[in-house]
């Protein structure tokens, strides 16, 4: 039925500043930048995956009441909007070092997790972006199974 996910939206306060950050700093490419007069349609994508885009949109009237838009903009700055994207990389530590050198605000240093190495950053508005270098999950061992079996209530 569905063939994929093409675009998802991330709320930003200022599209030009968002473009500077996502493209100029993170290395995304502009997929579409269309000034429609009443709005600016701005999407960006990772160069290696051009058909998977992020729509950078400003919550504002008349799309929604101004009070609602103001609440959403506040929520972004509170870090309450959920993860904007989980990006994949083949070298999390090198990516971290390169972006760190550009002054990106990291909220988690590269950390080994059961599924790989990942780190996290904020965009200028407060959106949470993660970078993951996927690896095979740690295997469950017989020791683990024995331990869980022993602890299971009778």
């Amino acid at each position, binding site marked *: 039925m569905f063939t994929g996910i093409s675009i998802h939206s991330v709320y930003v306060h200022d599209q030009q500043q968002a473009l500077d950050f996502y493209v100029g700093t993170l290395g995304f490419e502009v997929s579409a930048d269309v000034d429609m007069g009443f709005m600016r349609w701005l999407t960006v994508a990772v160069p290696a995956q051009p058909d998977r885009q992020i729509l950078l949109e400003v919550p504002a009237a008349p799309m929604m009441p101004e009070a609602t838009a103001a609440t959403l*903009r*506040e929520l972004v700055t509170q870090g309450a909007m959920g993860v904007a994207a989980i990006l994949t990389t083949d070298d999390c530590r090198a990516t971290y070092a390169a972006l760190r050198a550009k002054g990106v605000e990291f909220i988690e240093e590269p950390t080994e997790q059961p*599924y790989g190495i990942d780190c*996290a950053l904020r965009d200028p508005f407060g959106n949470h972006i993660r970078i993951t270098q996927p690896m095979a999950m740690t295997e*469950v061992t017989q020791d683990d199974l024995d331990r869980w079996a022993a602890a299971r209530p009778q």
Partner: protein
Amino acid sequence: MFTSTEEENRRLLRARDALDRDFAQPLDVPAVAALAYMSPAHFIRRFSRLFGEPPHRYLQRRRIERACAMLRDTRVTVTEVCFAVGFNSLGTFSRTFTAIIGRSPSQYRQDAVPQPVPGCFTRAWSRPSSFG
């Protein structure tokens, strides 16, 4: 670009991010408050208003949540977990852990099952919600 409220939110979020990132370090309220460009007393008030609890309590939950992950997903000892998440006494760690989780660290480990989803989600959703 930001209203004054948004700008203050962003500063407080930056300070909270520092607690999330540097949870293993000793808490230095004046240093964290400085990230938000606030005096310590004002910082504690504004942080509590925005995030629903004081920074010290947020940090303790963050540390215990990390301890849970280490107990669940790694094979290091309880004592090593205690120091790795920022406590400097096993007694304080065990007391805080038990107060928040309702079980001792070793009992928690006995009951644990590894969770195959991204850590940021289990972290956010499994963070203990109170001191019991």
